[in-house]
């Protein structure tokens, strides 16, 4: 299942010979390969879980809660693995952002569909506000990964509502994801205001999601503009607001 990583092993082993830090290179390669395998297993796990849930619908509150924890944790692992792989690729292979013209609503619906079951079992009502014809220029895999991660995160913290919207603004295309949860904690809000948003490892939780979102946003640039993210607690729904701006 890991044929792609194997295919790239030529480049990697070439690095290996030349690189003084060969230990590190080969370790990260092993890491990436096993992440890839984990992702496959997880795919099986998620599909089997969906099967089980449709065969044996929850009998009571407790069941329902257990199912939804299983779903959330699986979705979270998946989105983290996708991020890890993407970050690895961006650092190690010839992978650059691949900008294409895309229909924004398609990309957003795809990520919503991916998490449909999760949101439903948590009774979260989802609103999508996006012009059917809105066009964007970005790497749909990378941006899709960012959106997925934020949705999964919101599924954990929202109470009842989640709103995903996209529109053109003077700062570029803006994709926003807002919820009615408790909002982002201060350390995250502060981190996001720094241009070079380093994650706060000292605070216990490395906000890998933010690091990834930030990296992806910055990789989208045209002649004079660069993408960025903006985190706040000024949401229409009363909770946190995540905005991704792309030139």
């Amino acid at each position: 299942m890991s044929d792609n990583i194997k295919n790239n092993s030529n480049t990697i082993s070439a690095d290996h010979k030349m690189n003084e830090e060969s230990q590190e290179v080969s370790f990260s390669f092993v890491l990436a390969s096993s992440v890839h395998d984990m992702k496959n297993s997880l795919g099986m796990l998620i599909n089997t879980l969906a099967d089980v849930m449709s065969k044996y619908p929850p009998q009571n509150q407790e069941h329902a809660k257990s199912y939804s924890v299983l779903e959330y944790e699986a979705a979270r692992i998946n989105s983290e693995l996708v991020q890890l792989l993407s970050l690895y690729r961006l650092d190690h292979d010839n992978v650059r952002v691949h900008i294409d013209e895309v229909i924004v609503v398609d990309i957003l619906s795809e990520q919503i569909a991916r998490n449909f079951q999760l949101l439903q079992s948590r009774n979260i009502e989802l609103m999508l506000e996006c012009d059917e014809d809105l066009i964007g220029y970005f790497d749909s895999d990378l941006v899709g990964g960012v959106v997925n991660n934020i949705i999964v995160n919101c599924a954990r913290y929202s109470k009842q509502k989640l709103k995903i919207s996209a529109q053109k603004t003077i700062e570029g295309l803006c994709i926003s994801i807002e919820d009615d949860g408790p909002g982002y904690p201060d350390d995250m809000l502060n981190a996001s205001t720094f241009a070079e948003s380093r994650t706060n490892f000292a605070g216990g939780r490395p906000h890998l999601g933010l690091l990834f979102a930030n990296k992806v946003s910055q990789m989208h640039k045209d002649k004079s503009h660069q993408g960025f993210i903006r985190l706040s607690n000024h949401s229409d729904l009363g909770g946190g607001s995540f905005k991704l701006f792309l030139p």
Partner: protein
Amino acid sequence: MAENPYAKLQALVVDDFESFRITLSKMLQNFGVGMVDSAASSNEAMRYCSAKVYDIILCDQNLGKGKTGQQILEVLRHQPNLNSDSLFVLVSAESNKNIIMAAYDYEPDAYLTKPITGQTLGQRLERLFKQRLALAPIYNAIKEKAFETAVSLCETEITSGSRYTSPCQKILGKLLLQLGELEKAEDLYRQILEVRQLDWAMLGMAQVKKLQGDSLSAQQWLEEIIQFNPLCLKAYDLLADIMAERGDSQGQQKVLQQATEISPLSILRQQQLGDVALKNNELMLSANSFRKAVKLGENSCHDDVVFHEKFSRSAIEFSKTDKNAATQALRDALKIAAEIPNRFGKTNKNKINSYLLESQLHAVSGEDRRSAEALLNAQKLMDADDVANDLDLKIEFVKALRETGNTDKANKIVSELLSEYADNEEDLQKIDCLLEEPCSTKNKAFVAQINKDGIAYYDAKDFSRAIDCFTSALQSLPQHIGMRLNLVQALLGQFKKEPGNRQLITNMQFLIDYIRKIIPDDHVQFRRFRQLEDVLRGIASEKPVN
């Protein structure tokens, strides 16, 4: 109640994991897809596809043994068959589709990342069928070769600002290029590029420039794409074509090398790289590329016996320049040559071909007995069959005779060939590879020109260019003694410039050894050969300069 739009659809699911197959099939059935087949391997998938028309094929990329999902797509799209128009959805756990797409020339209609949920699949199918329906008039017009109609349909769709603007622009650009409407194509791409630097539009622009004869601008566009997206292999391909058109085979080789490093799985590029490296006398590279091409051929519709033969050819040449380094290549080439009849059909032609190659491979490995045996086997078959009239086989036969030391017999056949094919320029060009002086009009002119160029470079003391000239000419006329001596002399010139470069001495020694084997004592250039041999002996015995 609305009628189920999917009821009449036929679908095929291909995955080597049973649980994925079952899950996907169940999802499709839940959407109301009328008929779902499933296949566990690429072979099984190919069997289904040759028996039945599917509306949609959902195929995993990694199927364990045999073809990958992309290779199945390649077969379905490469030539007309029952499923050349089916919607093809490639499924993989890889979240970056560009990595998988890079190696191949055919794009699937959609790409889905695992894990797939019912919702994701349902949504994607709906979108795909909608798009197919919307663009059907355009595809139909193209299928009926009504290109003008297709162009105007695309234009209408684009001006209406439909959500299919982008796919229509891509189709329109290709149509315009195909119709030779270069100005219109240029306008289209320019408009797109004014908004955004999209690589497919830059690629289109490069194609326009190339067709307009402005290869320099085309090159600039392509280099920009590569800088911006190193995975865009179509850019390398086009760049390699441009280099080839310019006759810059060194440049062509370099570009193809970059492309094959990024995407080692592309058979067409490995084949091309093998060819151009052989031309440039980069024999190790050539042998390695042909070996990879042959290996990839197992699962590709682009496999051809020609490349199996070329692998032997390059391994033989390689062993003549560096016997030790070529050991593995010779061993592999023998195996491949022996398998030709099994792989491509047990016809007499294939059997003979296989024996003749084996005979030469054994000869250069010093296995004289085996070599003679293989040659004998070939001869028996040739005597018994009228395929012996096949010119390609006869040429190969002469080569085998020469490798095994049967020079007189080889020369006799060559002179027979010359009288037999005297009136056929194309055949004479083929025979030239056996001759010292070419007999075809084309190759005569070629030798005259390249010798003139090479000598001009030599006189101007531009030895490295002179070396390139003579080297590439020798690839098509390996028996040309004068040219080989010219090459020795050019190398000698270069050595005087770089007295520390021992590689040059090794190269000269191989050339002299080669000439010693083929030059008759009464040859007009025999004296010159002896002189150069002496000079080289003198240099080789000197202590290396530090």
